[in-house]
């Protein structure tokens, strides 16, 4: 056994223990520890990915050397490694980019708690990616929910508290359904580990037993995880939660948390229930229809929204719809497109949230998007970042959004019954995306005029004056630092987007390889 094979376990446990350690550290140290742990676990994930690519197969890792039907297992393959690397990168830059806002938004004495939540979030996401055991998955789903709730409510302004309770309620509905699904599955199969459970499911299906319970299990698990990831009719908590949390939290919640659940759902489809059974049960058609509805309705809501951050959040609803539509196509190509879009959305949504902060900063932090008139000139890099993110979401060539749209369209051609609705919905949704994203980008690059312009100009000048007045030198140097961190994050996200967009062939091939390892 190679030493690298230990890394999935090490990364989960390192993230968890850093959370425990952070409880006795002060804010700054906890933050540095978080960054260190995220960097180290991402490094480990890169090595796991490299290992799996080299050997060309996945492996399972026994916890405590208890053999298969009893013990707890971790499983790593190409897709797990790739997802873990991407999640790690997105999280790292989200923490760096939002660092200074976290320092302002969160009370001094609670700074370390924020980073504990980040550590726990990382640990639970890694566990959701790597685990091979259903009940472990449930436990980490709950840890993820609690950490997510902490990230939302730690900023105590505006509607963050009421949005936290909404988030908790919806999440608990989802986890309850997921838990009863697991219990039913355990009763039918007698296994909690994914691989033996899959064998049992195959036997049951072959013998034609338990048709109704299996259908119920599929429905309940899919709906439970769909609620938690915010599929369209269950999306009401999304705009409030993403709109009011501190920037790091918004980026992490929108970019990663929902994807963790989707990844788990895909894993359960392939590794437990069996993709062919899921397709035969028509469950994917339900996901397909709601995915389509989400694509359209999310965009319509976003167009009607005035607040930029809520607009981006509603766009998440639409993007989650895309992912479920890809899953719902029921072909290998559709699934590859869905996973690729998961990556695209993580990288792009985090970029949008982080650069939106940079734009708000120079425009007086007002909610209405019209206050951002000309903000692209006042903070050029954030403007470029936002424009890149927006174009990627619309599907501009060279950027990752284009590739995922291309993949969706080509995979739709393979499933004759779903081709027409998919392509029509893609086209309509792209136009709707363009309506609100380009409206924002045009707003950013409109030269301010009249009243609105006066106000914002007065504000930015006033800010400049006041910052110069307050012991000039220190202030400007710290401000410089803020800008550097934000720049670093925005540039990295843009690069990530370009890599996903321009270097897509190997990534798509790796996803395909990872998915075939799942079976």
């Amino acid at each position: 056994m190679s030493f690298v094979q230990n890394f999935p376990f090490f990364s989960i446990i390192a993230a968890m223990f850093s959370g425990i350690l952070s409880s006795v550290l002060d804010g700054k140290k906890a933050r540095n520890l978080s960054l260190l742990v995220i960097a180290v676990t991402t490094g480990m994930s890169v090595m796991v990915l490299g290992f799996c690519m080299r050997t060309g197969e996945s492996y399972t890792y026994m916890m405590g050397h208890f053999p298969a039907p009893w013990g707890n297992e971790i499983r790593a393959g190409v897709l797990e490694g790739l997802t873990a690397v991407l999640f790690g990168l997105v999280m790292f830059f989200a923490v760096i980019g939002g660092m200074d806002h976290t320092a302002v938004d969160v009370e001094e004495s609670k700074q370390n708690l924020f980073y504990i939540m980040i550590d726990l979030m990382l640990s639970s996401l890694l566990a959701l990616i790597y685990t091979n055991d259903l009940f472990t998955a449930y436990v980490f789903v709950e840890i993820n929910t609690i950490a997510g709730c902490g990230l939302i409510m730690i900023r105590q302004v505006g509607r963050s508290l009421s949005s936290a309770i909404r988030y908790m309620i919806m999440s608990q509905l989802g986890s309850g359904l997921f838990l009863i699904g697991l219990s039913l599955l355990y009763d039918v199969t007698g296994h909690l580990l994914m691989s033996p459970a899959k064998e049992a499911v195959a036997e049951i299906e072959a013998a034609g037993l338990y048709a109704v319970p299996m259908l119920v299990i599929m429905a309940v698990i899919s709906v439970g995880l769909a609620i938690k990831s915010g599929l369209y009719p269950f999306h009401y908590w999304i705009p409030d939660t993403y709109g009011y949390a501190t920037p790091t939290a918004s980026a992490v919640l929108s970019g990663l948390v929902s994807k963790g659940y989707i990844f788990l759902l895909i894993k359960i489809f392939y590794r437990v229930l069996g993709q062919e059974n899921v397709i035969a049960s028509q469950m994917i058609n339900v996901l397909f229809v709601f995915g389509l509805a989400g694509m359209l309705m999310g965009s319509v809501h976003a167009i009607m929204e005035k607040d930029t951050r809520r607009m981006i959040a509603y766009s998440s609803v639409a993007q989650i719809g895309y992912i479920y539509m890809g899953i719902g196509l029921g072909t290998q190509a559709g699934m590859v497109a869905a996973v690729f879009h998961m990556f695209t959305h993580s990288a792009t949504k985090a970029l949008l949230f982080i650069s939106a902060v940079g734009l708000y900063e120079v425009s007086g932090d007002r909610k209405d998007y019209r206050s951002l008139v000309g903000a692209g000139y006042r903070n050029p890099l954030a403007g470029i970042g936002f424009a890149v993110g927006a174009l990627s979401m619309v599907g501009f060539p060279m950027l990752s959004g284009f590739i995922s749209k291309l993949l969706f369209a080509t995979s739709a051609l393979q499933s004759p019954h779903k081709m027409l609705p998919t392509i029509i919905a893609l086209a309509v949704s792209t136009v709707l995306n363009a309506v609100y994203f380009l409206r924002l980008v045009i707003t950013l690059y409109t030269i301010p005029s009249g009243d609105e312009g006066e106000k914002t100009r007065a504000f930015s000048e006033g800010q400049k004056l006041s910052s110069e007045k307050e012991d000039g030198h220190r202030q400007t140097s710290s401000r410089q630092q803020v800008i550097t961190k934000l720049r670093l994050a925005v540039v990295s996200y843009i690069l990530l987007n370009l890599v996903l967009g321009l270097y897509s062939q190997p990534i798509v091939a790796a996803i395909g390889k990872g998915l075939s390892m799942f079976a």
Partner: protein
Amino acid sequence: MGMALLVNAEETVSIILFGVGFTMLMLHRNLIKKIMGMNIMDTAVYLFLAVKGYIKGRMVPIVTDGIQEVSAYINPVPSGLVLTGIVVSVSTTALMLALTIRLYERYGSLDLDQILMRAKEEEA
């Protein structure tokens, strides 16, 4: 169908309880009742697991009097799951209650609709 429900009375009851809890959590306006609903829902799952793990005429899975055969004891895995599940639901309940206290202090109400309305007003 009816007979099957009667034979598996415990499972039937636990699924009905799950439904009751789920509906309460989803539809009730009072936050405390929502949390109660959540607990009923979780407990129903534990009842379900416990019933499924129980085998009539067998002992608690602790080795007594040196009896080693597996067939003398009930299945210990569901009991383990129930314990883990209880830990999870205790922590989520605590978190929800803490949030409810915060919300009550801030908005002076336990009614979710009113809380959301006041939060909206506050902003405007």
